[in-house]
């Protein structure tokens, strides 16, 4: 069965420090991975997806099939990055495949 693991419930860093939010997945096929973010009192929103290979708000994430990971990274954290981050996996084919969500990591960036 597919599973998404975010090992850290809470991650606390200082402003300007590098940050890495971990995501590991379990899936035998070709997955599609996503990161979603929810800022305080705002709605959940898509941050980035692995197939886009883009940097959003300074964040990047690389799919590592060997390690079955999709860690979210940012070289210099900002206070406005404080939020809840969710990693999600979707089976590789078809538009009606549902997302499997991790439990989320709460990132706190301290001044």
């Amino acid at each position, binding site marked *: 069965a597919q599973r*998404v693991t975010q090992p850290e419930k809470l991650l606390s860093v200082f402003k300007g420090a590098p940050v890495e939010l971990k995501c590991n997945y379990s899936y035998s096929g070709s997955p599609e991975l996503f990161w979603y973010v929810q800022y305080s009192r705002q709605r*959940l929103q*898509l941050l980035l*997806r692995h197939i886009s290979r883009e940097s959003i708000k300074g964040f990047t994430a690389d799919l590592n099939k060997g390690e079955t990971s999709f860690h979210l990274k940012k070289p210099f954290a900002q206070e406005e990055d404080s939020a809840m981050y969710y990693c999600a996996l979707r089976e590789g084919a078809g538009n009606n495949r549902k*997302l499997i969500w991790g*439990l989320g990591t709460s990132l706190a960036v301290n001044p």
Partner: protein
Amino acid sequence: EAEVAQSPRYKITEKSQAVAFWCDPISGHATLYWYRQILGQGPELLVQFQDESVVDDSQLPKDRFSAERLKGVDSTLKIQPAELGDSAMYLCASGSGGLQAFFGQGTRLTVV
């Protein structure tokens, strides 16, 4: 900017009562999702619509939950009767091309 609209934002109901939530997706989005999110956990898909058809309701407790999207636009999720364990945030999302990019602000349900 277009947004997914949900109402009500908050709902308190007594157990065994009926409760309903409404979602209006972004115009033109054929796919609509209802999620339940319990505090401290990630969202759990309850039901997924493609236009007016249900494509996945495998996690929907069908003895008490029902969902409809009669005209393929807005949708209603109903719980009858509500139980204490149903207290959660209920999220609606919409998308096109299989991408779930747009979420509503959710309805926080408290069953007392």
